[in-house]
């Protein structure tokens, strides 16, 4: 194996893994506050299509990024209103958000499918993704607002009793997660593969969700996990390049297989899950009046 191939592989892994880091770190913060948002895939797709359409119509990357993020704020805001104020089931609402996002993005993007654009340089975003992981880690472990987020996710009744606004904290983290997901979508349609294609996130939202559990809710582990997952996905091309003969479908299945194995491995040890999982995850908060 020559050095150029290795560098090439690294390069591709770096570029293709970034959306997982964005979406994963957003979901990690959301889950730390005790909310499970299964709508990542939908948020990513809508973020991707909004960014793409804006770019085609205006030709301005800044507007494109801006509207992509706005789409994430709106959709995750709706999700937050449903699960926090109306106390709908988080799992069902998250799934609905994904299905909604898939449909909405397909409808909006129909006319734009195949339109050529000039992509943005992905390396800026790779740097930003590292910075975000650092910031999320610092925020959660060293700052008081981060401590409040963890406290709310750990025991929302106690947090409320101490005078913290559980609902507001969760709105913030849900919307942060939404923005991160749409950023991941923007990256996919503008930087990674500058184009729009229906369902182009190809299940990355689900992998990002698995990644949070894989990382046991720790930002730095999430970064490592993202690169392992991303590496597995990229392996297919390169293994084929060096002549390993396996059907393509086998490689397509690899990230999901890895996800399943990791999930089985992690949840086989109840203790590990209990020590690291936010104790109020997926439990609705009801003020007692």
């Amino acid at each position, binding site marked *: 194996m020559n050095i150029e191939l290795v560098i090439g592989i690294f390069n591709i892994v770096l570029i293709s893994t970034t959306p997982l880091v964005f979406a994963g770190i957003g979901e990690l913060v959301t889950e730390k506050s005790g909310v499970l948002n299964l709508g990542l895939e939908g948020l990513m797709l809508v973020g991707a299509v909004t960014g793409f359409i804006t770019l085609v119509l205006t030709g301005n990357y800044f507007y494109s990024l801006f509207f992509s993020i706005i789409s994430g704020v709106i959709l995750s805001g709706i999700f937050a209103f449903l699960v926090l104020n109306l106390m709908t089931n988080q799992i069902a609402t998250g799934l609905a958000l994904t299905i909604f996002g898939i449909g909405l993005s397909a409808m909006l993007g129909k006319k734009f499918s195949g339109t050529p654009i000039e992509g943005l340089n992905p390396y800026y975003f790779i740097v930003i993704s590292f910075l975000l992981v650092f910031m999320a880690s610092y925020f959660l472990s060293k700052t*008081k607002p981060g*401590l*409040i987020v*963890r*406290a709310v996710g*750990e*025991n929302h*009744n*106690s*947090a*409320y*009793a*101490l*005078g*913290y606004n559980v609902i507001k904290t969760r709105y913030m983290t849900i919307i942060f997660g939404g923005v991160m997901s749409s950023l991941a979508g923007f990256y996919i349609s503008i930087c990674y593969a500058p184009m729009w294609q229906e369902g182009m996130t190809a299940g990355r939202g689900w992998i990002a969700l698995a990644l949070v559990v894989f990382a046991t809710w720790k930002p730095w582990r999430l970064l490592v996990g993202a690169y392992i997952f991303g590496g597995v996905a990229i392996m297919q091309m390169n293994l084929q390049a060096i002549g390993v003969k396996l059907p393509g479908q086998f490689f397509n299945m690899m990230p999901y297989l890895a996800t399943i194995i990791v999930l089985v491995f992690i949840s086989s040890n*109840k*203790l590990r899950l*209990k*020590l690291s999982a936010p*104790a109020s995850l997926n439990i609705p908060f009801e003020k*007692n*009046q």
Partner: protein
Amino acid sequence: MQPIVEFQNICKEYPGVVANNNVSFKIIRQSIHAILGENGAGKSTLVKILYGHVKPDYGQIIINSDLATINSPTKAQSLGINMVFQHFSLFESLTVAENLILGMSEKISLNKLKSKSETICNKYGFNLNLNSPISSLSVGQRQSVEIVRSLLNNPKILIMDEPTSVLTPEEINKLFKIIKKLVSDGLTVIFISHKLDEIINLSDHVTIMRNGKVISNLTTKNEDPESLGYKMLGYKVTKTKQINNVNYSENVLSLSNLSSFSQDPFTTNLNKINLNLKKGQIFGIAGVAGNGQKELMEILLNENDFEFNGDIIFKNIKINKLSTFQRKSLSISYVTEQRLGHSAVPEMSLSENILLSMNHKSYFKKGDFINFDRINSYAKDVIKNFNVDTPSFNVKAGKLSGGNLQKFIIGREIMSEPELLILSQPTWGIDAGSEAFIKKSLIELSHRGVSIIIISHDLDELLEVCHNISVLYKGSLSKSLNVENIDITKLGKYMGGLFD
């Protein structure tokens, strides 16, 4: 003296219950004011209103002669009101320091917090390690964290909701000394309890509540436990005396060297537990919560395949590996701690709840179908014999009050004529009338030759009912003490882990 807090006509109604009915009284500055009442009398609701946790339907609160609108805990804290909760409001996976910071309304650096909390700890004799996670602390230590956290906000008024319910006698003495010192330093303490002795020992004034109403306001030094008890309940409770009726030659249950080795830091591992239960004996297992009671019950019940070493022998049969179902078939009955969700299903009717624990009896079945006539008549008998206050056996279990449901559950088990009955916290959180009735039923049951194990945090209950008491401490079981000539100081020492 001018009052620091005055409640005026506070009313709060929940669906089906009036929690506070026109409550008005005053609390004198720099005093210990006790609020006494049974479970469900409305004490907790009232202080939650004062703390801004619950909104009253009607009425007002005057603080320092000013009308105060307290609509959130934050507002209460800004008025100098802090609260130590009955079920602690701590975050298990966070450290002591993080928990303290979360309780502070002002911004503070970690170093300043350290020096400030150290000052408080030294002054009042708390011993805290700021870096340990809460999950590693004992219940008493957790309470210390909670109190220190309240004191960091320099409160004027400190509310303590049943603070002694989880402490050992020694820890209670220590807590009372701290409370008295706090009051001499200028604090006003509102102390909620249903334990008469504590109120006599500690408080200056006492307000007695019953069914949401204030019954009377008294100066404590003119009262004694009997007079307070009568005013709290509205009637006198008669105690059944336990008589020694144990057949010491016949072993019913033997536990030998029970040990567990779980890696889970949230469980307490049992350490070589030995116990011999005789026919007709009531054996109490005392101890502060979290010392292995849950794990012992797991092993005795075997619902979750909790792993352990050692042997459980029931009437010469080794039952280590037997399932709950098989153990019940051998006429062992269980009453678990959690009434709703474990002992009974809240959404199911009382008669359906009969079947849930009597599934091993073919009497209640017609082939593979349910024999509704039989479970209904069984439920009817339980309701009649155990004074369960309910219109019919079709009522959902969740609709019954705690006391009534507990009578129903215990009645259900007793009427199945067990040879061994194992109960966990049988009278926890229920009214005094039901409590007395349950104690009486258990004593009568033992007179009929049934052996009983009671796992309880409530020492008074065990002293009243049991023949023998052992204490669980960090997974080890102390020697058993005979209740007739029991040495309370020794028992207290056992509860603190000083076995001989």
